[in-house]
């Protein structure tokens, strides 16, 4: 590797299933430069960046970064603190419920900065990015541009030598975008040695980079400075240069877009908005917006993410009833229930509203069917859409795995499949490459001019705004200006629409709102202390308590900010213990019984009386025939029936043998056994009694049995159940909370922080586990209080011993949750699997109803290797038997043994890199 290259890739290939993301890439990335990766979506830019960042597992070839092989785990651990990686998507690596400060603080802690250094650095970073005024605002409530700046702060906190930014400005308004690049420029000016590797879909931005890598289809098309590329292709801007660099067959069909003039129609406007206002609480999302869109017009909405475009569109479609004002489509007021209007409108929402689990074809067919296209035309229509949007090669692939741009093409195909009169498109082209975008606009223009379809489109691409018949510039819920693009540019004397927009924006934000942080950026210099000033300790150590606590602290904050999760975690177990404690009763009482008394003698009546007087039985109307007995048993009306033969009294008096028939409902074996026990007991009592009264009746018993029911003299199941339900609930809820906690990060994408920062798997897992152990312990004390004060089950043993056992136990059950989370990919799967496994194992195999020693086979094995078994023993021993720690030593040891085992397995199963 030459001294001046920061990363070198040779023969690098990457495949997702049968898809090739990178195809034998060879490239040398120069150090100390701003290097841009340009190309459409889905060509492998993100994959390449992830490989360089060490976030993704290398499948093929060699990747050398900062002077070492990224294949080596040791090298990765060494260089990881020198690399910063910001994944694609607005705030993908941020935690939305945490405030701006807490987010940066978390990363600072991960890199082991001491408190003072950290706070000073955070203050500097927030000042220089203009985020300082929003220090305490949750990340989720920031605008797109601010989220990206916050992401940058988080990436810069540890002073990296290599900064990797994956599409940092996608979806950000032009002013914020310009500020973002200015910020990067200033940071580089301060730290000339830092290499920046950026991917971008905006070719305009790439002109300012030092060196470019143009990519297409998993291959590198060309490398060099922007000037070199322009010269080589003899083009004037990078958009054209890129198209020129494409292989010949890809350029086919591309032509410069010309928008033909619109023929103004007079049959009334298609869309009318009158003073639309939308308030969420005290936040005004859309403020008094009005416009009129003619039929067949292409009307553009320009603005940044979060400026109210989407909310306005939702009000137009009837998804959201406006707080005030009204909207009309084709002269009819928008009404949620009006299904006919919906049939005339095609809608494309911002979040690709496709079924990720379905294939491209299945998505198209489903929508065609839902719009009731005639069955015989569906095939043809789907084929037509597939051809038009070039979806042929993806036809039978699941949409989840497709690149952004292709998913959006499919979204559009779905929106127009039913030939609507009007199209409402919310950011249809963000993330789509220039060629496809031009193709897409060709289609829109076609639809508008030839078919007279009205198109209402929102975008943050200025060159798309220029193609609209009229546009509205939107910012912070208000329309800044509304006219034809040419008129807007003329009004501001600007040569480009972007400059005109920025002029309008600056005018709007110059007032009381420092929303975009304009002053912060212009006012203060970026101060990036030298690496020596940053207290970097323990970064490459195998285990750092600081990083562990950083994760624990963050998770704790998240749980505390999610009131629903917290309430359920705490109150849920209390509610359940009430239900279960009162509900599950192993007592068998109130058994319905009836007698077929064929004797009707004083003796038979006395026999029946004995049973009827017992609290265990409820007498039902007597039986009159065997057939009735059969029928009522079958219907479940009776649990037990007696048949006393005729001559019972006479035979008893004579001391002759006589049989009494007992029928017991065996449907529930446990109940049947108990019932039989009751009947036999009563039968013996009756005979004893009879023997005393009548010498001819022999005593039934040559010996007595004295039953001593220990620990629970009254034989009430609540004393047995409550101490058992506590372990049950301490298994479920902690395991579930934990499992979901980890899988959630996988789903939301913040798991990237595990891949990209020096945190180890053990620190990550234990850090996440700690808060849940805390929450579980709180709920444990609540449970004990309920048991003692509400159920009046006295705690005979020591509370301290019980708490110690509970602490170990919730550590194992949260560990179990961790283990489950390593298998599951989705939160649903994690939930279901955890629920089934813990429920089955705890209820049936851990001794809740039957001692483990009575189980056999697999059940016995599960019981032996399930922590609840041991905690159940401890809980019962302490609650009812007044045992001491000494008596429970083996259970404690067994419980303790689970902790390292579960943790080690979880660590082994968790991956430190993405596959």
């Amino acid at each position, binding site marked *: 590797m030459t001294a001046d290259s920061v990363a070198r890739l040779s023969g690098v290939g990457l495949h997702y299933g049968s898809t090739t993301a990178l195809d034998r890439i060879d490239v040398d990335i120069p150090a100390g430069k701003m290097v841009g990766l340009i190309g459409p979506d889905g060509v492998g830019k993100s994959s390449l960046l992830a490989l360089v960042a060490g976030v993704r597992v290398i499948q093929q070839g060699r990747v050398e970064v900062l002077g070492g092989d990224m294949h080596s785990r040791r090298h990765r651990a060494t260089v990881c603190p020198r690399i910063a990686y910001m994944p694609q998507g607005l705030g993908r690596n941020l935690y939305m419920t945490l405030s701006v400060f807490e987010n940066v603080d978390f990363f600072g802690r991960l890199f082991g900065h001491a408190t003072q250094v950290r706070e000073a650095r955070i203050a500097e970073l927030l000042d220089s990015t203009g985020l300082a005024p929003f220090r305490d605002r949750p990340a989720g409530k920031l605008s797109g541009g601010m989220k990206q700046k916050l992401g940058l702060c988080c990436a810069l906190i540890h002073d990296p030598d290599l900064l990797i930014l994956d599409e940092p400005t996608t979806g950000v308004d032009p002013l914020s975008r310009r500020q973002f690049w200015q910020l990067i420029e200033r940071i580089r000016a301060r730290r000339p040695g830092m290499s920046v590797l950026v991917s971008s879909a905006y070719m305009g931005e790439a002109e300012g980079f030092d060196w470019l890598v143009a990519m297409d289809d998993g291959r590198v098309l060309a490398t060099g400075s922007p000037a070199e590329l322009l010269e080589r292709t003899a083009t004037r801007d990078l958009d054209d240069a890129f198209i020129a660099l494409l292989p010949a067959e890809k350029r086919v069909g591309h032509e410069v877009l010309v928008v033909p003039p619109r023929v103004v129609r007079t049959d009334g406007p298609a869309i009318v908005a009158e003073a639309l206002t939308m308030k969420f609480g005290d936040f005004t999302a859309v403020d008094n917006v009005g416009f009129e869109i003619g039929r067949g017009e292409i009307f553009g909405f320009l603005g940044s993410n979060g400026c109210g475009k989407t909310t306005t569109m939702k009000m137009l479609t009837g*998804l959201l009833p406006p707080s005030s004002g009204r909207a009309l489509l084709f002269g009819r007021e928008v009404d949620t229930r009006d299904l006919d209007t919906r049939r005339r409108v095609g809608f494309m929402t911002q979040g690709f*509203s496709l079924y990720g689990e379905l294939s491209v074809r299945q998505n198209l067919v489903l929508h065609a069917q839902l719009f009731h296209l005639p069955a015989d035309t569906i095939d043809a229509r789907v084929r037509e859409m597939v051809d038009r949007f070039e979806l042929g090669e993806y036809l039978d692939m699941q949409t989840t795995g497709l690149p952004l741009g292709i998913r959006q093409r499919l979204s559009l195909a779905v929106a127009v499949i039913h030939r609507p009169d009007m199209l409402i498109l919310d950011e249809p082209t963000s993330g789509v490459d220039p060629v496809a975008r031009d193709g897409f606009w060709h289609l829109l223009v076609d639809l508008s001019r030839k078919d007279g379809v009205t198109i209402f489109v929102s975008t943050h691409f200025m060159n798309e705004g220029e193609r609209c018949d009229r546009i509205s510039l939107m910012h912070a819920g208000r329309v800044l200006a509304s006219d034809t693009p040419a008129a807007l540019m003329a009004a501001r004397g600007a040569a480009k629409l972007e400059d005109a927009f920025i002029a309008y924006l600056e005018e709007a934000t110059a007032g009381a709102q420092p929303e975009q942080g304009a002053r912060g950026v212009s006012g203060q210099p970026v101060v990036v202390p030298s690496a020596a000033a940053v207290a970097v300790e323990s970064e490459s150590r195998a285990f750092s308590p600081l990083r562990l606590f950083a994760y624990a602290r963050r998770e704790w904050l998240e749980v505390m900010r999610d009131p629903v999760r917290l309430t359920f975690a705490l109150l849920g177990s209390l509610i359940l213990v009430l239900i*279960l404690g009162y*509900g599950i009763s*192993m007592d068998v009482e109130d058994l319905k019984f009836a007698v077929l008394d064929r004797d009707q003698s004083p003796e038979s009546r006395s026999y029946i009386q004995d049973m009827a007087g017992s609290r265990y039985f409820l007498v039902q109307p007597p039986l009159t025939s065997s057939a009735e007995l059969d029928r009522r048993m079958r219907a479940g009306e009776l649990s037990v029936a007696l048949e006393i033969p005729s001559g019972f009294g006479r035979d008893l008096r004579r001391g002759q043998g006589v049989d009494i028939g007992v029928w017991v409902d065996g449907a529930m074996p*446990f109940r049947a056994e108990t019932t039989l026990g009751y009947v036999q007991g009563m039968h013996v009592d009756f005979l004893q009694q009879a023997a005393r009264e009548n010498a001819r009746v022999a005593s039934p018993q040559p010996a007595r049995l004295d039953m001593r029911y220990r620990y629970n003299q009254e034989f009430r199941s609540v004393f047995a159940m409550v101490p058992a339900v506590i372990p049950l609930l301490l298994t479920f*809820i902690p395991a579930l909370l934990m499992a979901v906690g980890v899988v959630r990060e996988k789903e939301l994408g913040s798991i990237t922080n595990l891949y990209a920062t020096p945190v180890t798997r053990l620190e990550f897992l234990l850090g996440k586990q700690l808060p849940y152990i805390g929450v579980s312990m709180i709920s444990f004390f609540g449970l004990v209080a309920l048991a003692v004060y509400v159920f009046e089950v006295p705690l005979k043993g020591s509370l301290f011993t019980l708490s110690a056992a509970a602490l170990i136990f919730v550590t194992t059950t949260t560990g179990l949750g961790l283990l489950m989370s390593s298998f599951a990919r989705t939160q649903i799967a994690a939930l*279901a699997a955890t629920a*089934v496994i813990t429920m089955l194992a705890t209820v049936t195999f851990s001794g809740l109803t039957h001692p483990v020693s009575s189980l056999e086979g697999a059940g016995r094995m599960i019981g032996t290797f399930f922590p609840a078994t041991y905690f159940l023993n401890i809980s019962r021993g302490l609650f009812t038997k007044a045992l001491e720690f000494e008596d429970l030593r083996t259970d404690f040891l067994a419980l303790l043994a689970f902790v390292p085992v579960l943790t080690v397995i979880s660590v082994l199963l968790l991956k430190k890199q993405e596959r």
Partner: protein
Amino acid sequence: MKIRLLNAWRLGVKELLSLWNDKVLLIMIAWAFSGGIYTASTATSQELHNAPIAIVDEDQSVLSARIAGAFYGPYFKRPDMIAGSQIDAVLDAGAYTFVLNIPPDFERDVLAGQQPGIQVNIDAMRVSQAFIGAGYIQNIVLGEVGEFVQHRRAEAVSPVRLVPTILFNPNLTSSWFGSVMEMINNVTMLSVILTGAALIREREHGTLEHLMVMPLGAFEIMLAKVWAMALVVWIAVGLSLYFVIEGALGVPIAGSIPLFMAGALLQLLATTSLGIFIGTLSRNMPQLGLMMILVVLPLELLSGGMTPRESMPGPVQDIMLAAPTTHFVSFAQAVLYRGAGLDVVWPSLLAIAAIAAVFFVLSLALFRRSLAAQG
């Protein structure tokens, strides 16, 4: 209406396709209805099984040896002989459920007709074994003593005999009970999870919003999920009944399987509607999971499938009458074990149907309201 049903049909097919692509969930369903039921029903026993027992033999006579020899499987483990001083310790440690103490001179006193007593110490915390086991011990000990006495004394024993007949499950095989109850538990749990999760997934992925801008109403969206998920679980129930419960476990099914399946369908309508209800109330997956536990666990434990309903406190019994599972459990027991026909079980079926209808309408109302409010 026809169009709406057609929409519901197509959306439902979509649900099935989505489920087909989620292999983890599929494996879960398959396991729950096969291996899950099999292990749960073979490994556990609701009746006395292998109860651990110890004997303190202070008599050391022929009779006491005979008594000790009379305890064997499957009800009891072979008894361990321990010393009298160990009784408290072994019970505290939970090593045995029963400890018999045969006093000195027991045999002599029996033969002398003095009715000597044997002390039986029972760990009453093991509620399920304690009472039934005590009855067995009484029978076994008295049987042995009686037989012993008969050889030595020519005196007639008990003239009045009790002749028990256990109906529907003559040997009280626990797997007959356990398997079907486990299946019912799985029906409740999976149908609620699958439907609730299908709804949340749409909400989280933004596709719900997309459905709403199409000419579709809340009714179709909900019905689609209800029928698709109910069908999946229903088929699983059918297969599991034939291949696992009747096949692998050899449980004889007394009644009509079509009747049971019809009842199961009604039950699934109720539980899937419940799934929609819960899915509407919760905003994301973790919330759904917690909510699930709060709802499903009581449904499973309090409906009479685990412990007899009549032993629960009165208010609990009354409240549980509003739960479909309560009626479904009694319906399933009547049909599958007792061979009851429609003439017997129609009240349960009616109750399930009524509850299902109420659940469906309530869930639909809530779902519709949440769609309107959400935007």
